């Protein structure tokens, strides 16, 4: 049994942590969040320079060979810094699909650009009717000459506004919610027939609604096997779920620390409000939620290379925990900050909003509790 991380992993965590402390304070973050840009190109380039965009890819693919532990370390720091740059969309989602199923050519063209930080990518994992079920795909891919013709709608495509290309899951056979019959396609975002409505999300990240109307793609745009892409899609989404769970742990701990600090300094009735036992116990509850969530996260990280069933079960466990404990910690942090907690000016409000989004992304607590039961 060993819960420690290697020296290399520790150095990675330190470098991200240093970047957050020195170059990504709350003021900087808010200036990016409130700008018209989807994110900061400078920050993205800095992530590439730090090796973060290549960290999770194998050395054969030109990456640095990191795995779930590195993912956890990076995302926890991103949670602490409330980073809005599209690491999840590029590296974990699109990169996660390409590293699993991309051809050598696709890796060389697309993955290399993601790792270098020069290409923006997105995975269109959701449809308007599908709720949290990634297999519920009504987008149809029909064979057409030497390629395919895609038609359908995609919802909440993270980084969809900035993406140079999209990975679009579409149905080549089967019924709407079947796991069989799903194929992944690379679609340039300027493809004829593709329209996107991009927007910022409540947590200052960005996404887009995408409509495909008879978009023609070549056969070479298929990633992996025709009709058998669901496991690839599902595994990439599991990685992404693990990633945002780690981000949530960073956020929860930050909210806890900020709340305790505030309770030491906020004087009411002549004493710090942290001296009230009723509030102390609530902050202790927050701490316990943080620790329990971190424990489940580590469990899930350690099972990430295990059997599918164990891994998926652990992912659903941590996501359920993040959905429930995360909401509790977020709401309590706001409540204990009083009126200040519901102001735009205070960072607590923005941590709370991101935590709320994370609670919904890739399936909320109910969804993952059901999945956990189904896997048990």
């Amino acid at each position, binding site marked *: 049994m060993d819960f420690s991380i290697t020296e290399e992993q520790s150095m990675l965590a330190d470098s991200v942590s240093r970047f957050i402390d020195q170059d990504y304070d709350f003021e900087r973050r808010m200036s990016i969040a409130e700008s018209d840009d989807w994110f900061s190109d400078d920050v993205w380039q800095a992530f590439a320079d730090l090796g973060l965009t290549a960290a999770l890819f194998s050395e054969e693919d030109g990456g640095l060979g990191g795995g779930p532990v590195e993912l956890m370390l990076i995302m926890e720091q991103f949670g602490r810094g409330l980073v809005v740059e599209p690491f999840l969309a590029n590296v974990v989602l699109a990169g996660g699909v390409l590293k699993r199923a991309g051809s050598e050519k696709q890796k060389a063209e697309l993955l290399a650009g993601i790792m270098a930080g020069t290409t923006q990518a997105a995975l269109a994992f959701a449809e308007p009717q599908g709720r949290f079920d990634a297999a519920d795909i009504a987008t149809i891919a029909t064979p057409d000459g030497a390629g395919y013709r895609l038609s359908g709608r995609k919802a909440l495509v993270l980084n969809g506004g900035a993406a140079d290309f999209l990975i679009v899951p579409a149905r080549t056979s089967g019924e709407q919610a079947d796991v069989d019959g799903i194929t992944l396609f690379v679609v340039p975002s300027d493809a004829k027939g593709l329209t996107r409505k991009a927007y910022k999300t*409540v947590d200052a990240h960005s996404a887009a609604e995408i409509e495909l109307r008879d978009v023609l793609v070549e056969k070479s745009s298929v990633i992996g096997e025709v009709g058998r892409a669901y496991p690839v899609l599902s595994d990439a989404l599991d990685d992404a779920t693990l990633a945002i769970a780690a981000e949530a742990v960073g956020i929860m701990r930050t909210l806890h620390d900020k709340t305790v600090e505030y309770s030491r300094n906020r004087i009411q*009735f002549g004493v710090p409000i942290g001296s009230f036992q009723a509030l102390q116990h609530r902050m202790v509850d927050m701490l316990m939620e943080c620790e329990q969530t971190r424990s489940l996260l580590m469990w899930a990280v350690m099972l990430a290379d295990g059997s599918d069933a164990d891994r998926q079960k652990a992912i659903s466990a941590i996501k359920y925990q993040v959905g429930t404990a995360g909401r509790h910690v977020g709401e309590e942090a706001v409540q204990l900050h009083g009126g200040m907690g*519901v102001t735009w000016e205070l960072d607590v*409000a923005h941590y709370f909003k991101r935590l*709320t989004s994370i609670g919904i*992304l890739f399936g909320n607590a109910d969804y993952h509790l059901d999945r956990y039961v189904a896997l048990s």
Partner: protein
Amino acid sequence: MHVNFSAEELRFQDEVRTFLRDKYPADIRQKTDTGVPLSREDYIRWQKVLYQQGWAAIGWPVEYGGTGWSPVQRYIFANEMANANAPDMVPFGVKMVGPIIYTFGNEAQKKRFLPDILASNVWWCQGYSEPGAGSDLASLKTRADRDGDHYVVNGTKTWTTLGHLADWIFCLVRTSSDVARRQEGISFILIDMKTPGVTVRPIITIEGEREVNEVHFENVRVPIENLIGEEGKGWTYGKVLLQHERTNIAGVARSKYRLTRLREKIMQPIHGGRPLVEDANFVRKMAAVEIELKALEYTELRTLAAVAVGKAPGPESSLLKIRGTEVQQAIEVLFLEAAGYYALPYVPDQYVLDLPVEDRIGHGSETTTSLRYFNNRKASIYGGSNEIQKNIIAKHVLGL
């Protein structure tokens, strides 16, 4: 024991329904239905309709222009207003400062202020909380120093809801610091917001709207005739008002309305997918909230019945505030969960601009659910936080 309405009460219910059907402006309803903030003009236009009907001041005595309604009539009215999704009167004039003025003010003050409150000619806001005086309101520091026939007011009030739209502000200020208890030496004064030295600065709330403000006073000269009641007794008056605020805070009728809407919503397939009503987890959670709300409704009815036989609402109104806001917040969570991914887009402008449905992100008003959820976290903080309400119950009900 029964909760049936009498024939007369049923006739009254019909009258209210007919009024709301015929007189509640459709354009305002459209805004409240989609969650678009109302403009000052919207509020005033609607409030003047209520005024014309004689229904602006539900709780006031008849002699001042109130309705003189029984508690049951008020209950019916609140329910019908909620069912029509019609906005309540902005509370600061008619529900807050009005009762203080007719209870503790002199004849000149009643004549000067009450008619304009009733007719929504003057918009009021509340100056209680300060940056250093939130839950501990008695620690307030805004000073009003006597100078001839004026007070000179200096200090800062905060969380002033819709203060940027207001004409007048009622304030708790310190007129003496040479007192045995901090609650003494506090006075209740009325200030014209146009007086030189008054500055209103926005506080943007978590979801990005301007709803509350900070109001700064720098050597603001206020005529002494704007003092309500006796100097140094403001705390007593303010407490009466807080009590009043609490009896209106449970929001049972509004919560019932929201749950009805939610029930309709989950029956419909979302974007052609499976309707949420098929999700047992969700339906169970919704049922649990419904049960809590039913309990709250009967708790409120019990309070109303006690008031009807002449008992004053006491500290038990704190219970209504706590549970009422908890239920409101639980309902917002359900809406948030029902919206799925469409809770995430931050596109408040699409409702304000009244974009055609096909150009909107998400169908219906799903993207407002997160904004409502975030914004409504304030409910357990304002009007005396729920922690303070529990202190009140512990002290005055449990006697601890």
